């Protein structure tokens, strides 16, 4: 097998994102080995075949590489996405509560306050997990992070649904918060989708998370 064919085979087995550095290293390694073979008297095609054989099966190399780099990279991306989303969403809960003047409209129902508090707590919980996952990806479990993210998403979705229900029940309440919340929610969603797509790219066609 030629070096180019091997690199193509390896590229197909590696995740579609984040493998550029490794492929460049493999390329340099195989060119170096080929050069050494040619220097020792082999013709070029034999030298390439020998270099590829010594490097090992593309399947095994890709699997080992994924085992080392994949989960950490996915954790890091998920952590970063959660911190970014948390930083965007957090002011929504804090600012209207503390900084705005008393509302002239209907008092907010207590169940909505409970939901808001729950969402806030779960976001803080997820944010702390995300920060740990980002700073120390080698030691932080991905399951804890995903659980925290799922809890935060459920609480946020419930809060948004309850908020909409409140607006429908009491039409005199302003929609300004929702107007602010909608683009932020879209940004949050975009961030999570991007992280999920990136993680899928890391997983590649053959390896699952």
């Amino acid at each position, binding site marked *: 097998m030629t070096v180019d064919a091997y690199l193509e085979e390896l590229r197909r087995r590696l995740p579609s994102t984040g493998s550029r550095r490794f492929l460049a290293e493999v390329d340099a390694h195989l060119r170096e*080995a080929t050069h050494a073979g040619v220097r020792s008297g082999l013709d070029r095609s034999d030298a390439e075949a020998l270099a590829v054989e010594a490097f090992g099966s593309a399947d095994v190399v890709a699997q080992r590489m994924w085992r080392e780099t994949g989960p950490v990279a996915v954790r890091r991306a998920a952590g970063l996405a959660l911190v970014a989303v948390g930083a965007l969403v957090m002011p929504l809960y804090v600012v209207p509560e503390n900084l705005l003047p008393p509302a002239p409209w209907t008092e907010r129902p207590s169940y909505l306050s409970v939901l808001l508090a729950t969402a806030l707590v779960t976001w803080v919980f997820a944010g702390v997990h995300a920060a740990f996952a980002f700073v120390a990806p080698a030691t932080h479990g991905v399951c804890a992070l995903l659980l925290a993210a799922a809890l935060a998403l459920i609480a946020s979705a419930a809060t948004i649904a309850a908020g909409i229900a409140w607006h429908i029940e009491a039409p005199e309440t302003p929609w300004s918060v929702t107007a602010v919340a909608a683009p932020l929610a879209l940004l949050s969603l975009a961030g999570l989708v991007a992280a999920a797509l990136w993680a899928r790219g890391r997983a590649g066609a053959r390896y699952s998370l």
Partner: protein
Amino acid sequence: METPKGHVDLLLLAVLAHEPAHGYRVVESLRDRSGGVFDLAEGTVYPSLYRLERQGFVASRWDMNDGRRRRVYRLTRSGRRELARRRGAWDRFGRAMEAVIG
């Protein structure tokens, strides 16, 4: 002969303590210094190097030499400490084996 499982990291740290090197040179060095005993599947060295780098024991950067671009790995300060720790553990293991098998 196959490299003892679990000791590849120690071997890589020891090779890099000798001199900074790119992946191909690391494999060559392992083979030469072991008299051909440790003849690894070359591609399997990279996952170990990446792991050591993630743990902070090794650092790497691209280097241009003779018109070729290579990723060169070097031991960090904590890598040297880790090497000393693993050497100590290996010495104790070796002495224990020697004591048992004579």
